[in-house]
């Protein structure tokens, strides 16, 4: 059903784009980083109907294919921002101070104003039923800017409230919202952000935790009550329909914020208690907690926006050793996770410029992360953590034709993004706007 819808969508999508839509595209004689298998120093990839048809050193080029000469070019799988709001109708994310409690979700949306909540029964800050897949808007200019930087997919989530809503894996084609959705059930995004002053329950972290716990108890009871009622309607009170619990029960996994060891321990225990499959996000002090992450088989989303000294901070302020160590060592987390064998994917944490993203990844690489692991954390690992690695994340026959073709290695500012393919459709990123003098002269 899903694939059929996708195919129909692709067919519709390809049509208006080019006057003579090619049935196939072949990139030949390029260096191919497949991620899932060995790197081909010289090989070809054939794309057909939005999917990868074949890849290999001696793949034959179909007669009907448009040929892209790949001499001197490198082909990567399209990059994935594993925790994003791109494509959603949310205000431009406010830049938030890094290193704050909760791991810094990509936006700093204020909680929606509503009636004052008097307890968990009022279901405050709960839009668990909201689907990102239903909220996609083409008005978000980041769709194009992210694609131009090589990001062909994102896992986008509603981020307001405590039970913010369900994310979707989307392709950044920017053609038709419904055609962009790869998986509308990427998981339920949870935050630990309490109600503001006067907003009612919960207005503390422990209130938030108690609230979430109560919701999962209620959801369990709701499910059981519905089953009993369905079998024995006579003599039993009808369970009241609750859309927030429906949303909670529909979630395939939950995303929980955890930045430092304290929160990592707390949230891992919490996920176990709730009996939920969880992905932790934030994790920038994860270098101190790789052992527990490994021991508990955790999988994590690592925020690439490394903490920095506040630019307008008090120069006289005496900072704690812990704060200094955090800023110094946060970029080592990626290498530490890789070494410990903890599955992780990167998310941009609101970074929007190629130079910032490249610098952040290079920082992680300078701290010991291999280039291959860095690419994996932005491709196959992200796909795997959201259960779409059978469709995305590597260059393999049958997968969705999301590719980045560059002149030069990824994560270098000099590297030119030649082509980006999303669902097999070729985009040629416009040359980057003139950079400030200091960057352009390199």
């Amino acid at each position: 059903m899903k694939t059929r819808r996708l195919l129909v969508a692709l067919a519709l999508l390809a049509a208006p784009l080019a006057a003579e839509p090619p049935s196939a595209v072949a990139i030949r004689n390029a260096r191919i980083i497949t991620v899932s298998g060995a790197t081909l120093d010289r090989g070809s990839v054939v794309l057909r109907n939005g999917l990868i048809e074949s890849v290999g050193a001696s793949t034959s080029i179909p007669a009907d294919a448009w040929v892209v000469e790949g001499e001197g070019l490198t082909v990567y799988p399209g990059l994935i921002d594993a925790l994003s709001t791109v494509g959603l109708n949310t205000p431009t994310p406010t830049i938030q101070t890094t290193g704050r409690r909760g791991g810094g979700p990509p936006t700093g949306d204020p909680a929606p104003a509503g009636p004052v909540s008097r307890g968990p029964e009022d279901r405050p800050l709960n839009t668990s039923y909201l689907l990102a897949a239903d909220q996609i808007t083409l008005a978000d200019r980041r769709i194009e800017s992210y694609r131009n930087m090589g990001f062909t997919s994102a896992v986008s989530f509603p981020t307001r409230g405590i039970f913010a809503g369900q994310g979707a894996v989307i392709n950044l084609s920017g053609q038709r919202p419904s055609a962009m959705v790869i998986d509308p059930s990427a998981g339920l995004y949870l935050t630990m952000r309490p109600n503001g002053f006067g907003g009612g329950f919960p207005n503390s972290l422990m209130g938030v935790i108690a609230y979430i716990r109560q919701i999962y108890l209620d959801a369990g009871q709701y499910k059981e009550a519905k089953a009993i009622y369905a079998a024995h309607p006579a003599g039993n009170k009808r369970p009241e329909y609750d859309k927030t619990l429906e949303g909670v029960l529909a979630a395939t996994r939950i995303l929980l914020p955890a930045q430092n060891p304290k929160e990592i321990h707390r949230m891992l225990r919490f996920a176990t208690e709730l009996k939920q499959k969880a992905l932790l996000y934030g994790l920038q002090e994860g270098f101190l907690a790789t052992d527990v992450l490994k021991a508990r088989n955790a999988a994590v989303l690592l925020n690439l926006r490394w903490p920095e000294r506040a630019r307008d901070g008090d120069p006289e302020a005496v900072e704690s050793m812990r704060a200094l160590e955090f800023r110094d060592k946060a970029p080592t987390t990626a290498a530490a996770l890789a070494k410990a064998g903890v599955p992780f994917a990167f998310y941009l944490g609101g970074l929007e410029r190629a130079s910032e993203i490249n610098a952040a990844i290079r920082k992680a690489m300078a701290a010991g992360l291999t280039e291959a692991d860095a690419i994996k954390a932005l491709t196959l690992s992200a796909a795997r953590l959201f259960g779409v690695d059978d469709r995305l994340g590597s260059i393999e026959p049958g997968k969705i034709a999301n590719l980045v073709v560059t002149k030069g290695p990824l994560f270098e500012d000099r590297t030119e993004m030649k082509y980006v393919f999303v669902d097999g459709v070729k985009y040629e990123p416009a040359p980057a706007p003139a950079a400030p003098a200091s960057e352009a002269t390199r």
Partner: protein
Amino acid sequence: MKLASLLLLGCGALLAAPPIVIQNANVLTITKGSFKGAVVIKDGKIVEAGEKVIIPPGAQVIDAGGQYLMPGIIDCHSHIAADSINEGSVSVSSMVGIEDVLDPTAISIYRALAGGVTTANILHGSANSIGGKCSVIKTRWGKGAQGILFEGAKPGIKFALGENPKRQGNTPNVRIPGAPISLRYPATRMGVEDVIRQAFTEAKQYQKQWKDYEARKASGAAVIPPRRDLKLEPLVEILDGKRLVHAHSYRADEILMLLRVADDFGFKIKTLQHVLEGYKVAKEIAAHGAGASTFSDWWAYKVEAYDAIPYNAAIMVRKGVLVSLNSDDAELMRRLNTEAAKTMKYGGLTEEEALSLITINPAKQLDLDNRIGSIEAGKDADLVLFDKHPLSSFAKVQKVLIDGTVYFDRDTDLSDRNRRQLEKQKLLDKEKQNQPKKQGGPGRRPA
């Protein structure tokens, strides 16, 4: 030399710990008198304390050099080591708990430890008639949240009376711009009583609802289970005697009110916290069996504290109330020994009575006197070594042991400071070096 043996001792505790003997100490047992002698520790427990002890083979011996050894100090009322304290949005917040938000990295834990505190009752705030669940911790600095929890401690909960719980929130009179006006019930002391009575009435109904369900289910009927209510479950535990109530209170009238409410519903108030007018109703408190955890000499800092007197603790002791002194404050927590000393000036308690207020008495108030609060065989080896008598204002903590492991050592702390400072400077320099250079900064301006 001393340091080396301590390091060995610390490592040893991780393996099969060798026994430890602290000898040549002035031992203040609190419950069994004082003597010059030794304490033997094995597997985290005190196995022997006396003037002459048998030193087990292979034991690590610490020479106390005539310094003073007392049981670890217990603070029955603290708000350290938690990421949030108050869920102030509702007047019954029993669904929340400190355990969910423990912060084992809070530096206040180390500071309390350095002041000789080994056990603390971490309470929810006092914004609610019935507040959140408490956690008893040991100040095991360096351990995780699970590692600082006092294993096996009976669960507790915070209640509060008087000015704090009757605050209504963002009232039109004290308006915070932008925030919605949300008046919270109650607004009076009468209302506080009503909220508590209402909550326990609901709890009793809830208890019955579950009993009815279990009965119907047992009879084989296909019944829908009731909803579990995390707000009411702790109240049912109170009714069942499984959860200790620590009630923040100031005035005599509200103290009596709460004791009456508890009697009506058939539960006990384990401790009255602050209880500044406790001296007026000490006999009634003693008759209920409630403990009192008070301040030494704080008064008149708000209207309901106008009748507080520094003789409060001593008077209540003389009237047969189980009394402790608490800090309610991360700073005061570091010197509870001098707080105890004040009760000798105000009210004439003996040395032993004064020290009881911060050791065995709070242990009893937390139902943990079988584990901590005195130096006796069989109890946890939570010990503090002071260089002078702990009731002297010149006394400084030298070492603190918890479960037989040294968690604080003054010499180590002092000798580490240089190294830490150097490490810090290194990081600062590194960050400065890596900072992108500004072009045309102020340095280039002509003089």
